[in-house]
């Protein structure tokens, strides 16, 4: 494949032809801030946060949409670039509620990150602010369009990852807003609540309802695991705070990338449900009574051992689980065959 060599901030880098300046910079480990760019989505080129100075060009260029060419000389943090980024941030902040103190995305927000990086404290252009009602009429996602920076990633994620086209730009000019058709709520639309739009939103405009109200971003410990629902085997991160699972966020899964469905992303609540069994139970006179593990295990061993010895091993039967791990299925097969002495083991896979 043809390659091009360019200079970024004084260093040289060779990349395949067709790469963008942003791709080249990332390959070199040079950070360029972006808002509307996402590697999995089509390029929008609308936020201009990623501008860079290209020697010989009359204006600043957006690095996410400009192809790297042979001999190109690029500066990513020149005074002109910094000035431009500050102006963009001031414009965005001028129409953004500055309630970071209580925002669920505090600490995990690109607008915050870049405002900090470029020392922009507030919007420089006092003017009209949006006063949209916050949408939380569904149990999964909260939409606060006052915080939306119109990067359009949710629109593209819904169309290109989820294939749904639920949300799009509506109205014009200052009134431009992201909304489902007829400006209804998600609950009133065809939305399937996969949350794949939430996963790409760079700010607090789209938030997971429970997760963001239960834990601040830095209090969370993430544990990568595999979904317990269907056989697709999506990977995700369990978000843990104080020994409890408070939410699920996307990771880069082998099978699913960042995409999840509603069950994987929002179906974790059963883990700490009050109905969970927490003690062994033994039925006495038709009623369950709590028992110790010693007592329950001894009873199981005695009764199953008794049936095996008196009625023969084939009077026992075992159902294993398509929900349990491989290791557990293996051990139950071993228990059935080696200890009970029968091959009477099956599971409900046929169902």
């Amino acid at each position, binding site marked *: 494949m043809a390659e091009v060599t360019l200079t970024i901030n004084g260093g040289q880098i060779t990349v395949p032809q067709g790469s963008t300046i942003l791709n080249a910079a990332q390959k070199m480990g040079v950070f360029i801030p972006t808002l509307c760019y996402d590697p999995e989505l089509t390029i929008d080129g609308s936020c201009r946060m990623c501008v860079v100075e290209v020697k010989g060009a009359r204006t600043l260029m957006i690095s996410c949409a400009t192809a790297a060419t042979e001999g190109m000389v690029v500066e990513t943090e020149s005074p002109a670039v910094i000035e431009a980024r500050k102006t963009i941030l001031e414009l965005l902040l001028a129409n953004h509620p500055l309630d970071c103190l209580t925002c669920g995305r505090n600490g995990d927000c690109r607008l915050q990150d870049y405002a900090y990086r470029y020392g922009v404290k507030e919007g420089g252009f006092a003017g009209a602010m949006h006063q949209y009602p916050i949408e939380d009429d569904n149990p999964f996602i909260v939409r606060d369009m006052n915080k939306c920076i119109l990067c359009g990633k949710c629109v593209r994620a819904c169309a290109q990852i989820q294939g749904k086209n639920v949300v799009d730009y509506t109205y014009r000019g200052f009134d431009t807003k992201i909304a489902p058709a007829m400006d209804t709520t998600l609950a009133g639309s065809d939305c399937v609540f996969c949350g794949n739009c939430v996963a790409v939103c760079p700010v607090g405009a789209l938030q997971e309802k429970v997760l963001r109200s239960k834990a601040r971003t830095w209090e969370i410990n993430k544990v990568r695991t595999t979904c*317990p629902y269907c056989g697709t*085997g999506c990977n995700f991160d369990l978000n843990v705070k104080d020994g409890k699972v408070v939410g699920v966020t996307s990771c880069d899964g082998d099978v699913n990338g960042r995409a999840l469905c509603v069950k994987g992303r929002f179906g974790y609540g059963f883990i700490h449900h009050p109905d969970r069994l927490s003690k062994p139970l033994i039925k006495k006179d038709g009623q369950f009574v709590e028992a110790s593990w010693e007592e329950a295990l001894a009873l199981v061993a005695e009764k199953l051992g008794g049936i095996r010895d008196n009625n023969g091993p084939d009077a026992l039967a075992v159902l294993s689980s398509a929900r349990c791990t491989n290791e557990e299925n293996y051990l139950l097969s071993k228990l059935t065959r080696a200890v009970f002495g029968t091959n009477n083991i099956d599971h409900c896979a046929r169902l």
Partner: protein
Amino acid sequence: MTNPIQDVAGADFIFAIGTNTTESHPIIGLQVKKAVRGGSTLVVADPRKTEVAELAKVHLQIKSGSDIALLNGMANVIIAEDLYNKEFVAERTEDFEAFKAAVEKYTPEYVEGITGIAAASLREVARGYARVKNATILYTMGITQHICGTHNVFAVANLSMLCGHIGKPNSGVNPLRGQNNVQGACDMGALPAVLTGYQGVGLDDVRARFASAWGLESLPAKPGITVGEMLEGASHGTIKGMYIMGENPVLSDPDANHVVHALDKLDFLVVQDIFLTETAQLADVVLPAASFAEKDGTFSNTERRVQRVRKAVEPVGEARPDWQILCQVATAMGYPMNYASPADIMKEIASLTPSYGGISYERLEQGGIQWPCPNPEHPGTPVLHVGKFSRGMGKFNPVEYVAPAEMPDEQYPLVLSTGRRHFHYHTGTMTMRTGALEVYYGTEYLEINSADAAKLVICDGDKVKVSSRRGSVELSARITDVVPEGLVFTSFHFPEVAINRLTNPARDSIAKIPEFKVCAVKVEKTA
């Protein structure tokens, strides 16, 4: 699956039969949508106008239970029009002549009488499938008689072999597994006739190897019985004790009333689960297990990818991980079982299972591995049957269409079919307790066509009673053209709509799959 999930997006032709992929496997559904956006042809065969059927170029709205006729009909056209892959058939398969003879009578016109699909549409779809470079077939339990990988996938496999659409990327025969670790449970030998990796219990050398690894003189050679036979045995008193781990047959098995009756007759029932399920309520002892978030382990997904499950939090209360409970039961019965961790158990599995031979927790840290993976250097096998089938030559297994065991009649004039919903999972044990999913999708309804509703004077939202010869349930009606005239549909997720009180336990004689997709019912308005 013979091919990885990502391959679906690259197929030129996707034939989805009996799978509402976008609802039951949403992320695989995304690959289907991606393929369609990229210009691939999607053909869906399903009695219902499902979400995925709406996306299809052609929707073959077949009569319930007529899939085999449809598949044989496609093969008939492809052979009659000489569109089959002769090179593939000659070099890689056997018994083609027997297959050819068997499908001869399945002319499009004959098939039309069984499936209700116009002969011209069948021809068009058959030609489309045969002519493209890469074609993949997706299906779920609804259509197949096959279980667990080793058995051949008769009608579907025949079609794919006929066109050589197997053993290469972006093609293949791809059953989509309903539950997260069905693949793994099968792989691990949670089946009556095989040990891990489908090694038969009837083989002396296999038993000898496992016996010596497990420190025993011998292991039982007689194949065990299947779940349906277990329940039969329980009701007849030949099965006296059962151990059920993490399953809820009272709701998930057909003819629920019979299941309860059978389990009630046992002398002793142990249930190990995370909730007091409908099945656990019948137990003599209930052992509290840890959820997936509270233990380490691995799941094997539908594309045979072994992936890590990691402990994130401590088990609630005194609950324990299933693997520990099983060790303790074995130990209490005089067979000490000790493992430091699930990683240790995987070492033992790998040492006894050729297809898992190269899988270890160290390697899984770098990402999932698709078996067969025979040794630590092996990269895993994303596409099966490349160059050669696992059994050598691909065997055509002719299959005949048989009518569903229970057809509608005067007394029970409608066909009931059951399936899954996007927001829920299996018997609802988990998804009804999330604080979110059940809040949004909290009641189940019966889908009924407007023509049937009009005949029965049922309005949208009316309470109706659905009855079969085995039982009845009450729920609200939803009038919709998702179902054709003569068919009603609901899911089996909701305990209060225990639809499996109605379904027919008549099982396929080979794979013992109960006939969930077809049973005869009547619907009456209650209020």
